[in-house]
């Protein structure tokens, strides 16, 4: 056990409130083991055909306590969650709720039993308003069983206030950023007022401020005596919020321990079986000519955005959720329209609203919403990996499966996509594994400028540092990289330059030397503007 791996939590806390690892745990002691647990799973197993997603899932949630569940991508965390929710039925094992054995056949049953679940991938009804989404199936009623819209809207506003977000309660869910979708799911779950609240990577798309708000809500629920399960790949969050932590690996239970008795290095070792640094140290690259220049880009969602990316440079685009960062890069890449402004790649103006032209010019965009935008769900991993390079794989205009598979094999192994067969449907992959496929798909295009929107959302430690290493290496080879990230340590660790956006405008541009949590956050929140 080498001592040179520091516990990363205090040093890299993306949440300003992230205190010493033991801080949160001290407030509540785990309940006495003799009392029945709020929820207990013993040796749960679950297979999908040949794929064994869970071998022995074991978990014990106590009331008045926040329990962390961590593990690599594909370790089986979400599968366990879906079994708790009644979405999947276990093949074997015991499932006790308040000491009594239960057997949920549907999500309605688990909900009725007092379990609320926030799933890893938001699943909203796109055409309903966000309020209707939150209260789907349990709308407040007034006389004659009519839906009480005013009350419903009022409650939704209350929830948003509690979570500290500004989302219009009447807007449709369609077009919400992935972070806002996640917030709606959180609002939905906490409004259920459940005894057990399960959160599968609720923070993956959120930035520091929203995470803090969520944590405040979670702590309040804990203090009311609820049992909470929290899944995250961010250790600082686990240490800041949770009281107990369970580690899983390859579908099996590894260990449960009080948070105060462990540290990042230990947890990582339990997760992957060896030592891994949480953040990859950035390599210095030679910064060369300007590759991408955006001038005066304006649309209803953002205004006067100027930015540039040079060869070898990693430019971080920081800001709060809803600052318009994703909207800007989508417009740059040509998937969204913009009203005015110019995009130039290597000195040549890019035709607006034409992703194909953008790709030809050497742009690549890894979008934020992998399931809706990054992947073509319903088709194979090979097709997805080669989707953006399919024209380059032809011989005399003919594209064969063999050519696709060959290219797919190269990229799947480069990013260590966990799949045995190339014709596996990408929709069945774990969240982090899907993210790898999207990254690989775009790296395969051999771009000059790579735009990545939350590239490590939902990715585990090992792979995350691998993604960082990859980005660093690509920059070293002369690529320009524009990276949106809501994770402050990632931005600060990786970026040569940080551009901060707030409410659709660029509010700061900071050199690597000037960028620190305070300067970035004050530009992002506007707090520093007055001071």
């Amino acid at each position, binding site marked *: 056990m080498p001592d040179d791996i520091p516990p990363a939590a205090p040093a890299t806390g993306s949440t300003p409130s992230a205190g010493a690892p033991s801080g949160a745990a001290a407030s509540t002691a785990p309940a006495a083991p003799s009392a029945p647990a709020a929820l207990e799973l013993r040796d749960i197993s679950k297979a*999908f055909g*040949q794929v064994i997603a869970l071998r022995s899932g074991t978990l014990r949630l106590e009331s008045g306590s926040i329990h962390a569940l961590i593990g690599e991508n*594909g370790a089986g965390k979400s599968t366990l969650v879906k079994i708790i*929710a009644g*979405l*999947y039925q276990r093949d074997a094992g015991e499932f006790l709720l308040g000491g009594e054995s239960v057997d949920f056949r549907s*999500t*309605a049953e688990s909900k009725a039993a007092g379990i609320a679940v926030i*799933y890893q991938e938001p*699943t909203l*009804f796109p055409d309903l308003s966000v309020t209707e989404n939150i209260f*789907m*199936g349990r709308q407040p009623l007034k006389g004659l069983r009519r839906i009480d819209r005013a009350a419903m809207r009022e409650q939704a506003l209350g929830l948003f206030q509690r979570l500290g977000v500004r989302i219009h309660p009447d807007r449709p869910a369609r077009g919400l950023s992935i972070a806002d979708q996640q917030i709606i799911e959180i609002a939905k779950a906490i409004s259920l007022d459940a005894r057990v609240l399960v959160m599968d990577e609720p923070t993956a798309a959120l930035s520091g401020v929203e995470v803090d708000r969520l944590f405040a809500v979670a702590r309040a629920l804990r203090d009311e005596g609820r049992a909470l399960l929290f899944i995250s790949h961010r250790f600082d969050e686990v240490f800041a919020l949770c009281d107990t932590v369970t580690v899983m690996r390859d579908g099996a239970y590894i260990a449960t321990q009080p948070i105060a008795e462990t540290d990042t290095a230990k947890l990582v070792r339990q997760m*992957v*079986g*060896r*030592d*891994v*640094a949480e953040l990859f140290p950035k390599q210095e690259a030679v910064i060369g000519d300007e590759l991408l220049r955006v001038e005066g880009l304006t649309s209803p969602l953002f205004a006067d955005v100027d930015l540039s990316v040079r060869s070898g440079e990693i430019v971080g685009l920081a800001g709060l959720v809803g600052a318009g960062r994703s909207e800007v890069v989508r417009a740059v890449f040509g*998937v969204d329209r913009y009203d005015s402004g110019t995009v130039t790649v290597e000195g040549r103006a890019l035709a607006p609203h034409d*992703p*194909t032209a*953008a790709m030809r010019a050497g742009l690549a*965009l890894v*979008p934020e919403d992998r399931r809706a*935008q*990054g992947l*073509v*769900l*319903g*088709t194979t991993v090979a*097709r997805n990996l080669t*989707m953006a390079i399919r*024209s380059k*794989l*032809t011989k005399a*205009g*003919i*594209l*064969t499966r063999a050519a696709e*598979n060959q290219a797919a*094999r190269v990229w*799947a*192994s480069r990013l*260590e*996509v*966990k*799949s*045995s*067969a*190339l*014709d*596996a*449907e990408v929709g*069945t992959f774990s969240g982090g594994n899907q993210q790898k496929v999207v990254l690989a798909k775009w790296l395969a295009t051999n771009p000059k400028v790579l735009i990545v929107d939350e590239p490590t959302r939902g990715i585990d430690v*090992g*792979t995350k*540092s*691998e993604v960082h*290493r990859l980005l660093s290496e690509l920059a070293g080879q002369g690529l320009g990289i524009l990276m949106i990230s809501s994770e402050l340590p990632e931005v600060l660790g990786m970026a040569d330059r940080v551009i901060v956006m707030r409410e659709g405008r660029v509010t700061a541009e900071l050199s690597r030397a000037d960028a620190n949590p305070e300067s970035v956050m004050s530009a992002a929140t506007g707090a520093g503007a007055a001071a």
Partner: protein
Amino acid sequence: MSTTASAAGSTGETRAYRDYGRPLWRRVLLSREAAVIALLILVWIVGYTQVPHFAAPITLTFLLQDMAPVLLIALPMTLIIITGEIDLSVASVMGLSSALIGILTQQGWAFGAAFLVALIVGLVAGLVNGVLVTVVGLPSLAVTIGTLALYRGIAQGLLGSKAITDFPSEWTSLATGNIPGTPLPIVTVLIVVLALVFGLLLHFTPFGRGVYAIGLSADAAAFSGVRITRTKIILFALAGLVSAVAGAYYTLRFGSARGDNATGLELSVVAAVLLGGVSIFGGRGALPGVLAGALLIGAIASALRLAGITSDVINVVTGVLLVLSVVIAGLLGKLRFRRLRIVKS
């Protein structure tokens, strides 16, 4: 640094990726196409052994002649339905093509020239559909129900209730003759060539991959640089063009140009495509299945007809088959998706 570099290999081993997760026989035998082809063979065997005259070569000739328009139009229709759209105006374009050829030859045009005009008009009719669907952004179901009436209306306006029946025999014999020494009508050559072209386009080109991607997820396709508008316009234009060809064939085969030729044929085309395993929701299906689907409809119809069963009953049987195929596909899909589905309530 080396520890982090190797860290991503979470389980340590480098992975060898197999091409397929399931063995060949399961992939082939459990596909929808295989089911349709098996059914086609079954019907053929039953017809051959049980139905008088079914075994006669002339049955095959008539079957192919009857089904030729459906087989032809089903090719572009398959691609359109895979993108999640539909074109219901194809039979009206056939009628328009037929009427144009009739009126132009009657005015003394050479058949070839009239045919060319019909092709161009068919192409334009398809382009109009495509532009309304993509640029204007209307649902294709609504657009093509509208143009179904519009194109048919123009066709009937051109010819009224007249029928023009005088066509040069060297052209009509192309539509009615057989490939020498075989019972196969000459149009089989056209069907095979176009089937190969469309098969290549759908299954072996980047364009075809785009077609599937659009049907599965238009958003993800757009983010991958698939040109959705262009793809759809091309497909609708191709449907118009092929429909015009089918209209000319229909005219020659019956030696009669009428504005109401081939009325209702669009439903047989859609039926063949769906029976062949293409999902009406887009994203799934393959051409071999569709060809088998069209031949299956034709084989059942001709077997029943030869067995002396009325055409009403034949329609009922075809309808039941179609409903069954959609229901079974739906159930299979549900079974598969039960595992993937994320809660919606």
